């Protein structure tokens, strides 16, 4: 296996981008990543996308995006693992470069979610759960994570205030990210007094519906060093699955796919979680960030909430989590999210994060992307 590095990154602003089409979003991000990389051609590409079919009525996305990026006839594959589609796209590109089959490979992700109304967006997202046995009975994604939250509160004494601290911290970080959809800072009271979506989750516990795209360009390390002054290595990838429906989980508060994917990625990198300087994790809901950090082994079960209250995951904490603002503040165009995590990590490891959100002395980082209510997860380890 060859060593692999990121040589180029690009993303669009995240938000409600009515003036930009699905294809233009992807091309804008991919073009930026190509121009940043120093490479003048691609050998292959992957596009993470959860549901072009339901959001914009378009499938066959590999062909569409290769065509409009002007790189046809290279191979281009659409990758889908619900909200972990971006992470799965990155993993596929990593494997293709590491294997020696291709040299310069683009991993992108895109979602255009605001061309449909709220009811349709809720429905499209709910297809990432068990459509026959969860969606059919009226489950929504906030509803599924709310059930996890209630179980977590019942078992460990986690409180709404602890959840609110996750949102406040991520908005504080996102206020410094020029690409964030909702850069406004918020307070704990604002979260607790915002409208209830699915008890105990308020609207400010939830990530938004977002349009956006992100892309990274990968190359073997020896080529990367010639093309780019600051190649960032990808040390490893881990992916795992779990039951798609909550009802088949032994322990509702434990995200086993996250746990297994993290273990695989860390073992492949020859590291432990203590060797990691910061993390970008899948905070689609505030409770998700807590459960993810517990599943990753950063905290014992039940301990992530109190740690959030103590500020341990803030930019100046012991393990900064979501310096980009996370899905919560930056936005969550589902297929693009896993790639946008890689974008932030490369920015930070290059020392180029804007507006004073640059973390000090960071060398290694971990990205954790998740599909559905934890039915799949992809974990990637990076090193400067």
């Amino acid at each position: 296996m060859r060593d692999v590095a990121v040589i180029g990154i690009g993303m669009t602003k995240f938000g409600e981008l009515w003036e930009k089409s699905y294809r233009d979003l992807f091309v804008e991000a991919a073009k930026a990543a190509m121009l940043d990389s120093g490479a003048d051609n691609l050998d292959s590409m992957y596009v993470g996308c959860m549901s072009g079919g339901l959001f914009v009525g378009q499938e066959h996305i590999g062909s569409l995006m290769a065509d409009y990026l002007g790189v046809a006839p290279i191979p281009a594959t659409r990758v889908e693992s619900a909200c972990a589609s971006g992470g799965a796209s990155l993993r596929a590109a990593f494997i293709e470069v590491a294997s020696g089959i291709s040299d310069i490979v683009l991993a992108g992700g895109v979602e255009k979610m605001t061309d449909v109304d709220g009811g349709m967006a809720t429905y499209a997202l709910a297809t990432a759960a068990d459509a026959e046995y969860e969606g059919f009975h009226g489950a929504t994604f906030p509803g599924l994570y709310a059930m996890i939250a209630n179980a977590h509160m019942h078992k460990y004494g986690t409180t709404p205030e602890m959840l609110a601290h996750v949102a406040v911290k991520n908005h504080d970080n996102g206020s410094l990210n020029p690409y964030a959809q909702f850069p406004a800072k918020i307070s704990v009271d604002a979260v607790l007094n915002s409208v209830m979506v699915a008890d105990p989750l308020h609207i400010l516990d939830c990530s938004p519906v977002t349009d956006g795209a992100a892309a990274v360009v990968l190359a073997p390390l020896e080529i990367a060093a010639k093309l780019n002054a600051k190649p960032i290595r990808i040390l490893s990838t881990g992916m795992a699955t779990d039951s798609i429906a909550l009802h088949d989980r032994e322990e509702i508060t434990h995200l086993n796919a996250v746990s297994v994917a993290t273990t695989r990625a860390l073992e492949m990198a020859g590291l432990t979680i203590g060797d990691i300087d910061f993390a970008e994790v899948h905070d689609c809901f505030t409770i998700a960030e807590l459960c993810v950090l517990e599943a990753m082994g950063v905290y014992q079960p039940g301990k992530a909430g109190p740690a959030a209250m103590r500020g341990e995951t803030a930019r100046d904490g012991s393990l900064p989590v979501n310096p980009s603002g996370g899905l919560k503040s930056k936005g969550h165009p589902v297929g693009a999210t896993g790639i946008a995590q890689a974008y932030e990590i490369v920015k930070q490891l290059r020392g180029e994060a804007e507006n004073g959100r640059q973390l000090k002395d960071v060398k290694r980082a971990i990205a954790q992307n998740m599909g559905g209510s934890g039915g799949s997860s992809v974990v990637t380890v990076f090193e400067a």
Partner: protein
Amino acid sequence: MAQTLTARVWREQPQRYRMIANRDRETGRVYFPPRLAAPGNLEAEFEEVQLSGRGTVATFTVIRVAPTPYADLAPYALALVETEEGAKLMCQITDVDPEQVEIGMPVEFEFRRLFDDNEASVIYYGYKAVPV
């Protein structure tokens, strides 16, 4: 919800109308909906089981922003119910103020109207749970 095919409605009736599950003969674990393969055992043998219709609330939420077919019903309680047989399933808890639902609450399943699909002129029925 785009679940408008006649064949699909018919195919799902054993679970929606009669709560038919299956049990792995070797491990005794009950699966709802029934499975063709057990985790780690492709050759598992199964027997059909009809769920007794009783269980307890394992966790729940109150859905206040509902998907389109249930928009008129919100707010409603949605729960994971652990059945007497050990299988868990997701369903609405009805005939009770949603705010009164609690973890550990004993419930019984009843056959109820779920929602209708105006486009296909189909009314969907299935199970909901009510407090005992």
